[in-house]
């Protein structure tokens, strides 16, 4: 359980995280989405007590990180890939963390086994690939068998096999009742992994909702129409109150009327239709729409007004 309340981080006059409030609950994978530079890593560092909030606060299991008696037994985190001394072996890296929190050697070997690094555990970490570094970071996060887990961009640098492995790992950890908080700038990745998403842009909360609802709520539903009599059809649709826009590929996108209404309208003109295809936005598009708005500081109607503007 992670709870952020008006969490704010200011660097000079730049607000990296701005009045962020959210809750991450146990038992599900919660995705933390936002474009690069949106404040995801800063937020995660504040959860871990590494960066001090300028105002507001964040607790883990009801306590500030600083007050946890055995931090690694309660919270595990992968914050950055390859944050390892290149001259130290993977086992020594885990060993030095384990010793602080009274974690036995057996557990060190166990997490090495879980992440598949047993065979290279004695090698200097400087020789590790980015993917191996990620695995070692994940091993460090799992070390104390914690209830709360944070992963900052865990699939970066992994091959497809590794990505699938991380996905299974995250889902497995959540199914055991743990709190799993995963950041990513890739919507598609979160669509496959997260049950719930927290979306931020420019340090501000844009939305927190179940992944499925994100798609459903999207205002990006439209109907793509192709027709030799496009101009006539468009004038008529506008007259009926639909929002239309001619796309770069020559098709017409129509919002506000469904494919049945458009088809019937076309028949009354009459106009021949070459395509009449309802489009639902991909999760990626829904996310782009949400974060674009945050970048432009505009309301939800931005794309609509632009479309109608094009038509005029």
């Amino acid at each position: 359980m992670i709870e952020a309340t008006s969490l704010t981080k200011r660097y000079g006059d730049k607000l990296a995280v701005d009045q962020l409030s959210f809750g991450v609950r146990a038992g599900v994978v919660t995705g933390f989405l936002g474009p690069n530079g949106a404040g995801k890593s800063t937020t995660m560092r504040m959860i871990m007590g590494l960066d001090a909030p300028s105002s507001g606060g964040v607790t883990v299991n009801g306590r500030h990180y600083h007050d946890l008696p055995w931090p690694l037994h309660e919270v595990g985190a992968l914050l950055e890939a390859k944050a390892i001394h290149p001259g130290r072996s993977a086992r020594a890296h885990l060993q030095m963390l384990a010793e602080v929190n009274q974690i036995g050697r057996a557990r060190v070997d166990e997490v090495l086994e879980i992440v598949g690094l047993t065979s290279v555990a004695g090698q200097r970490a400087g020789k590790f690939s980015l993917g191996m570094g990620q695995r070692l970071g994940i091993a460090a996060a799992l070390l104390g068998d914690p209830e709360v887990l944070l992963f900052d961009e865990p699939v970066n640098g992994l091959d497809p096999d590794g990505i699938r492995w991380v996905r299974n790992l995250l889902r497995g950890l959540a199914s055991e009742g743990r709190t799993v908080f995963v950041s990513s700038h890739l919507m598609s990745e979160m669509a496959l992994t997260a049950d719930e998403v927290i979306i931020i842009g420019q340090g501000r909360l844009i939305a927190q909702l179940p992944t499925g609802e994100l798609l459903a709520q999207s205002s990006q539903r439209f109907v793509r129409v192709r027709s030799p009599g496009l101009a006539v059809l468009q004038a008529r649709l506008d007259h009926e109150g639909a929002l239309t826009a001619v796309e770069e590929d020559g098709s017409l996108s129509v919002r506000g009327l469904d494919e049945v209404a458009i088809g019937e309208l076309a028949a009354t003109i009459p106009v021949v239709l070459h395509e009449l295809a309802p489009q639902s936005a991909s999760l990626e598009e829904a996310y782009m729409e949400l974060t674009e708005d945050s970048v432009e500081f505009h309301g939800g109607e931005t794309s609509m007004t632009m479309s109608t503007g094009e038509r005029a």
Partner: protein
Amino acid sequence: MSTPAVNPVGTSMKILPTGHYGISGLLRSEWTKLRTVRSTMWTLGITVVIGIGISALATAETRSHWATMSPGDRLSFDPTSTSLTALLFCQLAIGVLGVLVMSAEYGTGTIRATFSAAPRRPLVLAAKGAVFGAVALVVSEVVAFVSFLVGQALLSAPAAHASLSTPGALRAVVGTGLYLAVIGLFALGLATVIRHTAGAISAFVGILLVVPIIVQALPNSIQEGIRRFLPLRIGVEMMSVNSGGGLHSFAPWTGLFVLCAYTAVLLAIGGVLLVSRDA
């Protein structure tokens, strides 16, 4: 790779160890850190080789020229300090290790893992200081004693030579080892404040070797007032048997106390900055 086998854990069923993390775990962790990187072996190895090796060269050289030395030179010859001077080079190696103990954590990013495991940062600094300080002290004392004994063995009669029972000799040998360990902690303090390896090493070398050159360029009246405060001066006084807290120097133990005070202030500032700055 198959689905990972993670120990199942119910949300509130997790049993934590009693009490909370503390200094004993941190001391073990810092010891692990120190012995699992090569830079420790390199810097300490250089300390041993340079300290003992150059001492042997210096004393052997003096022995070979003894017959041609003027009576005045013979009279002012201090066999103890001759066998210890090489340890002035050792302080560079010890200092570099002191810097790396802290700066390497920042350079590699492991500092965030360290502070995640132990969020009370001054406690981490205390553990680092204790472990590094103890290792530096043991190595420095060994080098000081071996350098002295090898040096005196090479300075056989008729050349003047000392033994540990020579007045002031034991103080010089033990004190030189202490001086090296404290100068290492001084470097650790600098690195805690500066956080970057290159910057901290530059500052360390600057304070140790460049500042004395600048001081030497000052008018005598000013120079005499401040020279005694220079760490290098304090070290030289400690190595010498004849030093008796001359007009422009502190007595050996007073000097070491001053150096300890610098180090304590630096470590205290470092501790405060560790807490106030983001990791």
